[in-house]
């Protein structure tokens, strides 16, 4: 029998830490700081809107691009919040989370062999999805620059075959973000080389120290930026799977072509709920943000005090402390911590080779669990230190 699995899929690298994940999932009574989603339940007004839409019998397909009501709401929301101008008719597409938006964006712009720049450590799917689309990811190690992409390194990485770049800020897994000046410096390189910029800004609303500036809002950038965002993180709606892509109409038209054949449309219940989120969730969203901000300050301070040096992340709900001092590598540290103290974290290597020497800690957990988990990590570090002596 011939090989059933295609070469392309066979060559895809399975995540190197799958075994570690299975270990975590198989254990009971652990405190997990490895969760990449909010610990809050979707605010009730949003859930209620989903339920109501079901009661009213909204169970059909929607237009491929998504409910007009939702696109119109988004257009107004983005205008009011970020002064972004996107027409609900031609420049907005509702996607199954940012994940689908990313896939569509890459498949829409990549010709075989095109290079896509990916700053690392990065979210896990950027590289593999680029490869699936026929592209070649070019990774830039940002660990020496406080996890930020610098214009110099970008300039160096770009050549004639470079088609685009994936920019994610605030960044999963490091939590860093960029100020306007830094973005403008990057934008000059991007404009110079006419790169398409795919921006995953799903954590944008969870920016704590300064205003989040969407890349598409910078001068001259709208025409080559695909702005990806979604409801998962800021509205605590991960399981609903609603995201959106905004961009120039020809790109959105291209993305919609793929979307209509592969997905058809995002589930209507989720779209109805998302439309409600835009109008009635301001207060709970602000409350969640304040809570994350407090936890961030607490966790960063505690980690630094116990000797796991970590920078101050400006957004999302992750910190990315260095564990190099312990003498263990990321996976060893995570495995040992899990076995000995029943605390789960994600090894930095899950986010690319440059994540070696770091772990990702998510503070999307209640204060009580955070305190307890940090206490255990402290105990764990003390033991390692003594063992070394």
């Amino acid at each position, binding site marked *: 029998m011939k090989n059933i699995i295609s070469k392309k899929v066979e060559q895809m690298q399975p995540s190197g830490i799958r075994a570690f994940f299975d270990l*975590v999932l198989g254990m009971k009574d*652990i405190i997990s700081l*490895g*969760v*990449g989603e909010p610990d809050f339940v979707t605010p009730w007004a949003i859930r209620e809107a989903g339920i109501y839409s079901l009661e009213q019998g909204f169970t059909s397909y929607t237009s491929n691009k998504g409910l007009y009501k939702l696109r119109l709401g988004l257009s107004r929301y983005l205008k009011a919040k970020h002064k972004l101008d996107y027409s609900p008719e031609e420049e907005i597409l509702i996607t199954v989370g940012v994940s689908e938006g990313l896939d569509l964006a890459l498949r829409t712009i990549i010709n075989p062999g095109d290079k896509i720049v990916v700053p690392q450590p990065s979210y896990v799917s950027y590289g593999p999805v680029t490869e699936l689309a026929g592209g070649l990811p070019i990774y830039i190690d940002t660990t020496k620059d406080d996890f930020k992409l610098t214009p110099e390194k970008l300039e160096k990485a770009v050549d004639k075959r470079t088609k685009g770049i994936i920019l994610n800020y605030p960044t999963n897994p490091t939590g860093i973000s960029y100020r306007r000046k830094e973005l403008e410096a990057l934008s000059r390189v991007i404009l110079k080389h006419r790169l398409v910029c795919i921006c995953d800004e799903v954590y944008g609303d969870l920016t704590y120290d300064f205003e989040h500036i969407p890349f598409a809002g910078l001068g001259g950038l709208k025409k080559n930026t695909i702005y990806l965002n979604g409801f998962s993180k800021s509205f605590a709606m991960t399981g609903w799977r609603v995201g959106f892509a905004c961009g120039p109409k020809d790109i959105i038209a291209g993305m919609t072509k793929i979307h209509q054949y592969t997905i058809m449309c995002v589930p209507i219940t989720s779209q109805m709920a998302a439309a409600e989120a835009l109008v009635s969730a301001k207060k709970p969203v602000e409350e969640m943000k*304040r809570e994350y901000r407090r936890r961030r*300050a*607490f966790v960063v301070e505690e980690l630094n005090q116990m000797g796991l040096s970590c920078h101050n992340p400006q957004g999302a709900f992750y910190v990315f402390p260095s564990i190099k001092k312990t003498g263990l590598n990321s996976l060893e540290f995570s495995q040992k911590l899990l076995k000995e103290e029943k605390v789960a974290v994600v090894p930095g290597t899950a986010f690319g080779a440059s994540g070696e020497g770091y772990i990702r800690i998510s503070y999307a957990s209640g204060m009580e669990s955070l*305190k307890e988990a940090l206490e255990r990590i402290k105990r764990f570090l003390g033991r390692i230190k003594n063992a070394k002596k």
Partner: protein
Amino acid sequence: MKEILEVLEKDGRATPEEIARMLKKKPQEVRNAIKKYEKEGVILKYKAVINKDLIRDEDSGLRALIEVNIVPQKDAGFDKIAERIYSFPEVTSCYLISGTYDLLVIVEGKNIHTVSSFVAEKLSCLENVRGTTTHFLLKKYKEDGVILKHREENKRIAISY
């Protein structure tokens, strides 16, 4: 400064040191602020929220909401008679209400007998009380923002990107 209250309202046991870390302030600053709130009566007390339904005790307590119609007094209006009512230790809450009656009084007692005798022998007999309607509470679903349920199991998968 108000954020200190937000933290304490969620967790009355958060220490000044912990709060200081969360809000990037000095512990002494937080301690002073809390003291000030306590002094001003903004923070009245710290207590546990107890789900009494889980204490399987016959006499674990019964609560009644009592609508009270009263005759306001000259000069003092409703306040004086309200004071006479809320001073009874059985009364846990007392509100002046707009609408068809005047005071909403929440009373707690060991069982139906103690609550009824309070209404019959103490409350109704007060001079300016014109009438009462008593509603016994059957089940509590949510109290002070807390849904009275067992802690739910974690619905998220333990690890994800």
